[in-house]
């Protein structure tokens, strides 16, 4: 049996994993990446509209800074996030964009002088400052008070992923492609690495590492229809869950994006609405201002998706052979704008719908899109329960998104978290605990366990059909753990998924060979997917409130009094369900105490500390400190950052001290 040894093992070749690996490699550590697919095929490539960072270069970004970005992010999260992490993120995002600019991303730039844009359905002329000419420009996105989303047309994820992937090649970081992690090797306290399976040859091996980083993306593919790539099956979450000690956070927090095309479920970017596109109903009526007079189409995604579903329930949806939908209309932006700034959208409409979005409206409806939940980590990206296990990006619950993520904040999180976690991982490897011995005997034991499990699948005569079971799982998640949730449906989802999990252990496959075999892959992933699905469904059942994207029709209020907390889930060996417990969020340490988001329905059961903390915060604010001193007084966070990233960010109107 092959056992390889490295300092840092990164599972996942998307933006978060690549950037973490580059950071660790630059600190002198031997670093290896495993990826299911060639790194440049990772789902990061699908990020279209852009990356939020408060550069404040454009005229509609004037006055933007970390404070505004932080507050938008916390409101977007419906106060479910870790505010210190949101602060670290807002501080790092400008550095990340600038680093990527230096590495080669062709960010769109500010053109001095007048330009015509569409705002609230009207053509408006903006005048960009000459001083900003050639700096990075930004577009509008939902739930933000400034135009903050930096982009390269609508292929931002592609441009970022190619640049960072190229840098990883430049750093000579090996990426072992088409390698799957089957299990984490651990002794109950420390992670020693992973068991790997070569998806081509079928060979099982072990990779021992001082630090293992799960950067495996989200779990969208447990739903039947999702904007996610097919590889986003929640295997990172499952790996952590199956240790029995590491915990997942907020798995019930799942975002539905307002504008996926019907029926393919492919995303068209929020940039469509950011650039002035409108949502229309069956009568051609623009309905969002009726529900959200302030933010209209540009409220946060959870709110827009619910308003769309509400409007369709009111009988205003468009009937089609593929069910009801609404229209996304970008014809008002004009062909020239679409050709330059929304070219992926144009391609998607052409190839998958046979329409020209400059002339025809796009059929859309809310569709599963993003996993806020994931492997729970501390601010350093490490699991508090399993030393040496790190996670970052969509795979992790770090937790900067809480119960709803803003558009443009996920692709930003990937690189920001990668920059930070790469440093913390290196610190860990160079610490005494990181230097502890790795066990080859343990590695052999785990590999043999996986070998036996695969042999059992192959040996099983007949049995359950994994394809049928998977379809059942997808149907349960879509019907009962969707945008609107209620107790009875969630109860029956948990029961059905439990039964599917039991049946999934009895699957049989037709093709009995152990090398490249998609049937075998599904057979061993299915029970893992079902465990993730059960963790989502049980978390949603037990959380009897509505917060962000988690909406309970039977408990429509955001209940800060009883539920201002984070769900933690672990799955003890031999158990049939995960064990849930809750980690409280401390209002008295929040920089932004809980309040109304400014969009959506205002229905809040207050936490007794919210008013107290608000009074404290108001007092500080009345003290007229400069914004840095005020921020420090409210909630210090810079001591949590690696020293190299503590510097202030320069802007046109904020020069470095």
């Amino acid at each position: 049996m092959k056992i390889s040894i490295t300092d840092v093992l990164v599972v996942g070749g998307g933006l978060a994993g690549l950037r973490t690996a580059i950071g660790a490699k630059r600190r002198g550590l031997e670093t290896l990446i495993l990826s299911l697919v060639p790194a440049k095929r990772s789902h990061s490539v699908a990020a279209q509209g852009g990356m939020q960072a408060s550069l404040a270069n454009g005229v509609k970004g004037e006055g933007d800074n970390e404070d505004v970005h932080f507050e938008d992010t916390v409101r977007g999260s419906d106060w479910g996030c870790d505010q210190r992490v949101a602060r670290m993120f807002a501080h790092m995002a400008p550095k990340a964009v600038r680093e990527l600019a230096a590495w080669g991303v062709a960010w769109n730039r500010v053109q001095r002088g007048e330009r015509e844009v569409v705002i609230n359905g009207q053509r408006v002329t903006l005048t960009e400052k000459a001083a900003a000419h050639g700096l990075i420009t930004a577009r509008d996105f939902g739930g933000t008070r400034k135009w903050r989303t930096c982009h390269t047309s609508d292929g931002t994820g592609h441009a970022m992923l190619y640049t960072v992937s190229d840098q990883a090649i430049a750093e000579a970081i090996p990426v072992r492609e088409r390698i799957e992690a089957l299990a984490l090797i651990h002794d109950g306290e420390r992670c020693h690495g992973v068991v790997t399976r070569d998806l081509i040859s079928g060979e099982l091996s072990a990779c021992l590492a001082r630090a293992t980083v799960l950067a495996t993306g989200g779990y969208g593919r447990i739903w039947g229809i999702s904007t996610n790539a097919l590889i986003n099956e929640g295997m990172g979450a499952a790996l952590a869950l199956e240790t029995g000690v590491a915990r997942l956070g907020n798995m019930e927090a799942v975002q539905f994006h307002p504008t996926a095309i019907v029926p393919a479920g492919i995303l068209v970017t929020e940039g469509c609405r950011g650039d002035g596109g409108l949502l229309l109903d069956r009568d051609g009526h623009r309905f969002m201002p009726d529900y959200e007079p302030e933010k209209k189409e540009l409220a946060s995604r959870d709110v827009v998706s619910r308003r769309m579903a509400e409007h369709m329930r009111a009988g205003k949806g468009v009937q089609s052979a593929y069910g009801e939908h609404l229209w996304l209309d970008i014809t008002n932006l004009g062909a020239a704008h679409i050709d330059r700034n929304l070219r992926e959208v144009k391609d998607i409409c052409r190839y998958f719908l046979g329409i020209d979005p400059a002339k025809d409206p796009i059929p859309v409806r809310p569709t599963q899109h993003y996993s806020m939940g994931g492997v729970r980590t501390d601010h350093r990206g490490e699991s508090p329960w399993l030393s040496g296990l790190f996670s970052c990006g969509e795979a992790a619950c770090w937790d900067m998104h809480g119960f709803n993520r803003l558009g443009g904040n996920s692709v930003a999180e990937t690189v920001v978290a990668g920059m930070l976690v790469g440093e913390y991982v290196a610190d860990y490897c160079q610490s005494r605990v990181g230097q502890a011995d790795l066990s080859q005997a343990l590695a052999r034991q785990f590999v043999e366990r996986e070998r036996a499990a695969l042999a059992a699948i192959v040996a099983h005569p007949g049995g359950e059909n994994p394809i049928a079971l998977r379809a059942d799982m997808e149907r349960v998640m879509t019907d009962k753990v969707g945008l609107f949730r209620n107790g009875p449906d969630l109860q029956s989802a948990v029961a059905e998924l439990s039964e599917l999990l039991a049946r999934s252990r009895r699957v049989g496959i037709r093709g009995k060979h152990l090398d490249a075999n998609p049937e075998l892959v599904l057979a061993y992933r299915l029970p893992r997917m079902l465990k993730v699905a059960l963790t989502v469904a049980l978390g949603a059942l037990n959380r009897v409130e509505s917060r962000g994207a988690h909406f309970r029709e039977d408990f429509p209020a955001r209940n800060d009094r009883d539920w201002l907390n984070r769900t933690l889930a672990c799955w003890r060996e031999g158990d049939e369900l995960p064990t849930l417990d809750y980690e409280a969020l401390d209002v008295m340490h929040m920089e932004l105490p809980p309040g109304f988001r400014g969009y959506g329905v205002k229905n809040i059961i207050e936490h007794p500390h919210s008013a107290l903390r608000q009074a404290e915060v108001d007092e500080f604010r009345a003290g007229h400190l400069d914004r840095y001193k005020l921020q420090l007084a409210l909630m210090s966070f810079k001591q949590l950052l690696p020293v190299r990233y503590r510097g202030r960010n320069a802007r046109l109107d904020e020069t470095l001290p």
Partner: protein
Amino acid sequence: MNSRSLTFNVFRHNPRDAASQPRVVQYQLEETPGMTLFIALTRIRETLDPGLNFDFVCRAGICGSCAMVINGRPGLACRTLTAELPADIRLFPLPGFELIADLSVNTGKWMRGMSERLQAWLHPRETADIDALEARMEPDLAEAIYELDRCIECGCCVAGCGTAQMRPDFVGAVGMNKIARFRLDPRDARSDAEFFDLVGDDSGIFGCMSLLGCHDVCPKALPLQTQIAYLRRGMARQGWSAKPAS
């Protein structure tokens, strides 16, 4: 309209199995509205042959995983509508790449090798201070760089290239486009002479026979024809102006 019955003639082979013979297997499916080759192949796997190997990741035409030869022409399967094809559909793996099994080929390994040989990453002039304002760039230039940066490394250009079929070390249009992309970028410190060193031989610009199948089959409609011509012209100019070796 009556739905058509489609016949898929699919290449099957497992190169690791000594008993496997390359062969074509037929599958029948009823066409449904909006059916793409992604939908069709998934349906074949779900209902007819669970062991059929193929690669889809984004299924949205952006990740470059699913290129295959569709009725004789390299293209992205995920965004190919069956309605645009005759009822008899032939699917083969991309030539020029290592076969994994059936329709799955190892483009990733090929692309990484090409990137390493061509040093296809930005070579920065200096380490940037990421706390400071970013270096400025003309908006039009940023857009022009992005235009060439849109390559998705799907391998269609290599599969559509006569030279690549004869010379395994040929970098293909994908490689030359990368050189063109970094050469256009003022942030890259390399000189023309250095770029031309990377592609100035038979595995690069001189291997190209100007058949330009690459240009015809590129799913992203990259301007490969002009970029190859510019490189060749720039190189000739470089050659004429360079001092002869002593």
